[in-house]
């Protein structure tokens, strides 16, 4: 009996040690995704892809910065096939570091996605605009007429503006696009004007900015398009639905280059062990069915032409606006560090 017990103990210790290494065993038909987009809808799409093709989608979820570091540290031995993130600047930055490879060149991809939103190494999978929200009770049409991002620094908005922290990636990309268009010096002055106009020290996420306008803490807010639709959908509860009805969306820079656009992108990682599967997954994400799934769940704009945005977006935010297609989204990455510098120098918390 005693001997048996000892054997069992030895086996269980061995099993425990063996399980330490179990994770490094590689499976055959799979694709490894380093994923910085954590919407439920994305997970559903990946399951659908697995059901259709038999290719297992392995996920490692995290914030973009940490994922990028891990891909870079693992270098050529990285297990990463695709890197999916919600900011074009991040894909550009990874490319600049030589961590990506070309291969996203199939007809399916090229035909689906406009040139501004792709390279050979990464491709947009969904679109969003960063726009202005305002309180129709406290902001007049005349005040808003011809409004631009540049106009956010106008002293008439003193104490009336809310926007997120400077560390936020959407703000970095927005300011990067301003630097690209107006130069660093002009943008530095602009940032000081914006800080002077803030109704409060930046705090909270995009939705919190919209709610601050609804609650009367501020008159205008800067936030991404899909947040308002998300609140209106009731998915965030009746209180936020009620709050969303108190604000209206406004597309800036309609008179010149158009409204700042950003994309979620999928990038092909250098040394990807499952390159073919990775390309298949990207192609799948760009099919009309997948795009439909995105627009109806995350309320982003579709990447491809023949899919329409969700009715909540169409009716409350609108589609009939001029997008900034002039400023290449790939430039956001290059100017992001400058953007942070400009904002920090201006005292943008």
């Amino acid at each position, binding site marked *: 009996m005693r001997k048996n017990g000892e054997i069992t103990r030895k086996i269980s210790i061995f099993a425990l040690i063996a399980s330490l290494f179990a994770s490094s065993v590689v499976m055959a038909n799979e694709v490894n995704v380093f994923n910085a987009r954590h919407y439920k809808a994305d997970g559903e799409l990946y399951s659908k892809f697995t059901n259709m093709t038999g290719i297992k989608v392995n996920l*490692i979820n995290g914030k973009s910065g940490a994922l990028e570091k891990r891909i870079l540290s693992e270098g050529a031995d990285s297990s990463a096939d695709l890197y999916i993130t919600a900011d074009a600047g991040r894909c550009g930055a990874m490319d600049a570091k030589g961590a990506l490879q070309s291969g996203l060149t199939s007809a399916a991809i090229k035909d689906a996605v406009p040139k501004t939103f792709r390279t050979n190494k990464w491709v947009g999978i969904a679109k969003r605009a960063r726009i202005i929200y305002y309180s129709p009770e406290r902001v007049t049409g005349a005040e808003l007429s011809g409004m631009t991002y540049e106009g956010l620094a106008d002293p008439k908005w003193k104490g009336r503006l809310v926007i997120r922290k400077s560390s936020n990636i959407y703000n970095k990309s927005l300011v990067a696009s301003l630097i690209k268009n107006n130069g660093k010096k002009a943008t530095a002055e602009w940032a000081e004007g914006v800080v002077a106009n803030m109704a409060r020290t930046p705090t909270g996420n995009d939705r919190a900015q919209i709610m601050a306008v609804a609650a009367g803490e501020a008159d205008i807010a800067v936030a991404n398009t899909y947040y308002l639709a998300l609140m209106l959908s009731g998915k965030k509860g009746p209180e936020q639905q009620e709050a969303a009805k108190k604000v209206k969306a406004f597309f800036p820079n309609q008179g010149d280059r158009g409204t700042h656009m950003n994309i979620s992108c999928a990038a092909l990682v250098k040394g990807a062990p499952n390159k073919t599967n990775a390309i298949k997954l990207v192609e799948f994400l760009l099919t009309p069915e997948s795009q439909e799934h995105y627009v109806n769940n995350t309320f982003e704009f579709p990447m491809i032409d023949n899919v329409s945005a969700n009715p909540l977006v169409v009716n409350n935010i609108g589609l009939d606006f001029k997008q900034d297609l002039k400023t290449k989204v790939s430039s956001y990455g290059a100017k992001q560090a400058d953007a942070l510098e400009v904002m920090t120098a201006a005292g943008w918390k």
Partner: protein
Amino acid sequence: MRINFWYISSLFISIFVIIPILTVFLSFFESTSNYYEILKDTFLFEYISNSIILLISVLLLTFLIGTGTAYLVSFYEFPLSNFFKWALILSFAVPPYIYAYSLTAFFENYGTAYSILKNLFGDKNYNLYIPKFDGMIGVILSLSFSLFAYVYILARASFLYQSQNFIDLGKNLGFTNFKTLYSIILPAARPAIVAGLSLVAMETLAEFGAVDFFSINTLTTGIYNSWITFDDLAFANQLSFFLLLFIFALFILENLSRNKAKYHFNAKGGFKQKQKLQLKRTKSIAAFLFCFLVFFLSFLFPLGQMLYWTIKFPENLFDLQIINLLSNTLYLVILSSFVLIIFSLISNYGNRVTKNKTLNILSTLSISGYAIPGVILAVAFITFIAWFDESVVKNLGLFSIKKIFIGSILGLVLVYFVRFYSLAFNGIKSGYEKINISVDESSYLLGYSKRKTFMNIHIPFLRNSLLFVCILISLEIIRELPITLILRPFNFETFATTAYISASEDLLEAAAVPSLFLILIATSFIIVTSKYILRDNNE
């Protein structure tokens, strides 16, 4: 000096733990890039001042809450005082980042507070009247309410063995209760309170989740950000150096007071067990209210908020693979506790039988891993493995070892090991100190080998210490965030990472379900083992 199995393995364990710590220290002397020089100065100032403000405020609050409640439940009888005695440690089950989610959920515009007011008093814009606990104040509250229990437990343990004579002394001198507390009880318990506060200080400096959630830049998040945003590992290391200076000072302070505390605890013999005083009506209500308020704010409030959201957005409950998350969490807990305890036992025993000075110093150094924030350890680990792989393994013509260590359970457990080694080592050490060395000698005289002495005599003696260490490690690992986040393998999530990921994506409602489960699991751990945590019958 005798070289044997025990010596070699203890040496190996200590060196293994010290490597990442040294990596952080040594890279301080690398020069940083000149780019963003001005920006760095601005940031450095901000990081340091934020860290100091946070540290002082949290220490002050945890001191007031921790010693206040400990004093009341140790010396007085009032309604539910026996319940509060252990209920107050339940705050351990709520990590600071979940507290932060709750604060935001409750106080934000159109949040829970707004819904409550609206249901009570009808439609009106209450948002402008609801205070907003975010930013620095949010972080301070989150940390204070989830960390005060360190001070509470140690202060209470110290009060418990304080002699009734001290209280009588105060009475004889005609002191008021407050004066007795202030001039006699607190000074006598000072070493224990300082030990509790230094634990709070280390946790505060190492905090990642809550600080990151409210985007307050401290040295710890600064290190992480400069690594990520500026790609400037050297600047990150410079920040680490400043942080380590902070921590080093605390470490010395803690060690000094720990020695005194030990002396103090041992001096308990010969004193009569004190009787708790029955409080009069008003005072007893005040004591009850204070303890209830602390219990409510530190435990019921976050639990309630997470529960409310889980009920309000039930679809999140069904989306979550709870069994999977539970088994992942428990797997990490069991595996890490097992590895930590085995190796800490070996190195403790090695220290005991070899009595070697070098080994002793190395062990003392190696336990400083607990003071280094998890996020920095994870970064140091990746840096070290990448360097080792590029410059040693590849040159030997071997296969890359990166995949074995980065993004694997093995890597995860190794870094947990470095981080929590001191918890295990010290816990077992304090157990060992109670076994007189003459026990070993008698055992050898009876012809027992070293191995047999260890297995048949020490282990049974150490059972309680081992159990206590197990609980501490489990609670730490259940709520651990940065290391798990950076190093975990594919498709591997725990309650903590799921909550963090949802919260960082503006899906705070979805973060409620994993948070709720995390609180419940930690709570059940605490309830089952509360008598070991409180150590009322400390032999």
